[in-house]
């Protein structure tokens, strides 16, 4: 195993870095910039049962060291993803593990998508998105209620052919019951954090800038919250974590791993630097050397995160 390689349920990653769901689409345009085989894995845009048009515009607004988005899970729907997007990735990058981000408005939607998408040969894991703050039905409403998380996770793990990582929302008073519920439901790991609910007001119109009113806050602004959430979940659960939130450098990625993450997803940073993922992968060995990290797998194995 190489210095950067890491193993998680369902995922043998050549390095711990992957794009975060929704910030990389299905990878086709980024593939024009660089060889996606360099990535540890690729998390696709949230996929729903039917095509989804998403929210009214404007859908994004800038904030200090962050951004709000209210895309509203626009995506071409399960059929197109199965017939076009995943086969394209399979053909171009047969070795690249795909993590399928799955969303829905009701349990049966999630179940159908999990069942079918987990049959795709390159989908090695599912990221169960119960934490999108930008849709009225499903999404975050699911992820803040322990009972719902339990039932949904259980229903999805029952039909999925690949391990399921439950994607957690930071918009909760206490993450503990949610984590326990997902564990009881058979989650193989967690992925965190999704965005924080935020808003910006347009001074000229005195109305919210975003068509949806509120949006999800991402980017370096939320990194300290991501680190804290990863740290907390790592202390209360033995399951592996895919960490994300504001990572834009190799040092950020290492910081999340030292908080307890076994792999790291990069979202908003792709917009600032379209080469963010590969830049981080390239610089990871340098920063590991600086901080005497022999290998990512050993870092994870030995990690006992102190609460100080």
């Amino acid at each position, binding site marked *: 195993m190489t210095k950067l390689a890491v193993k998680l349920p369902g995922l043998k990653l050549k390095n711990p870095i992957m794009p975060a769901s929704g910030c990389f689409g299905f990878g086709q*345009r980024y593939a024009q910039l660089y060889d996606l085989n360099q990535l540890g894995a690729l998390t696709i845009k949230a996929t729903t049962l039917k095509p989804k048009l998403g929210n009214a515009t404007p*859908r*994004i607004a800038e904030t200090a060291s962050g*951004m709000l988005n209210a895309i509203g899970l*626009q995506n071409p729907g399960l059929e197109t993803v199965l017939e076009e997007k995943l086969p394209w990735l399979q053909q171009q990058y047969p070795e690249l593990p795909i993590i399928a981000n799955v969303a829905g408005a009701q349990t049966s939607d999630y179940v159908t998508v999990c069942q079918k998408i987990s049959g795709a040969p390159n989908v090695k894991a599912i990221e169960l998105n119960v934490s999108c703050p930008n849709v009225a039905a499903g999404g975050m409403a699911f992820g803040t209620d322990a009972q719902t998380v339990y039932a949904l996770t259980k229903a999805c793990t029952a039909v999925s052919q690949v391990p399921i990582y439950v994607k957690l929302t930071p918009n909760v008073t206490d993450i503990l019951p949610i984590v326990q519920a997902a564990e009881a439901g058979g989650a193989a790991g967690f992925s965190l954090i999704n965005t924080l609910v935020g808003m910006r007001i347009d001074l000229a119109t005195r109305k919210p800038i975003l068509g949806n009113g509120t949006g999800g806050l991402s980017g370096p602004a939320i990194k300290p919250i991501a680190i804290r959430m990863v740290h907390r979940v790592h202390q209360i659960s033995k399951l592996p974590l895919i960490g994300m939130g504001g990572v834009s450098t190799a040092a950020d990625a290492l910081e999340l791993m030292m908080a307890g993450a076994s792999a790291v997803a990069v979202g908003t940073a*792709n917009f600032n630097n379209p080469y963010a993922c590969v830049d981080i992968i390239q610089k990871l060995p340098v920063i590991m050397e600086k901080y005497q990290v022999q290998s990512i797998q050993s870092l994870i194995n030995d990690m006992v995160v102190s609460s100080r």
Partner: protein
Amino acid sequence: MQQRVLKLKAQQQIAPNTFELILSGDVAALAYQPGQFVMLQIPDTAHLLRRPFGIVTIEADRLHLIYRTVGVGTKLLSQCRSGQLLSVFGPLGNGFPTAFLKPKQEVLLIAGGIGMAPLLGLLKRLVAHGIVVTIIFGVKTKAALFYQLELESLAKVYYTTEDGTFGFHGNVNSLIEAKLTQAHYQAIYGCGPAGLLQMIARRYQNHPHVYCAVERPLACGIGECYACVVPARQQNGYYKACEDGPVFSKEQVVF
């Protein structure tokens, strides 16, 4: 579509809140169509989103942009001095379709304010191919005009100002009403505020070649994030301003 670190070669104010920016570096090999754009990184890390600007021209090692300061990013940009390094990503998107035009044919360019920036590059290309260009350049007030000499050396130019301080007193629509109802053009190209583009689409609704460049807030700039969608005109759905546009025909989208 590539990322380059370019050096600020020269920057000057050409009208109130309007700047001309020349960046230099390894750009000579970048093929582009007028209407395509680049995304500039703002040299302050609190501002994550790159700012899109239409390419005016790329000549030898120079990338030429024109922009208006509207918010904090463009303000910071306007304060950059020679030697500043800026990360530039592009060319992105689709330019103005011109393949159907033949030398000596006439076209109309309609610019609202800073909307002249991407049309400038188009103008040069068209003239170089022997196309005869008429321009309508509408602004709020005389001071907001720029590049008049250059425009007039290449095309027939009509000016309109909202306050009547120069040229026709009124908006672009009333100017056309007053002076250009008889004229016929092979193609109409527009860029400017949404209201102007909507007016163009209405006025030339039966014209087969009406193309406008839209402005939408962008995040990825390459079609992967669904931030920048524009409602499709025909079906229930969206186009992406960054990848499918920023230039659209009036049949494609609701400007």
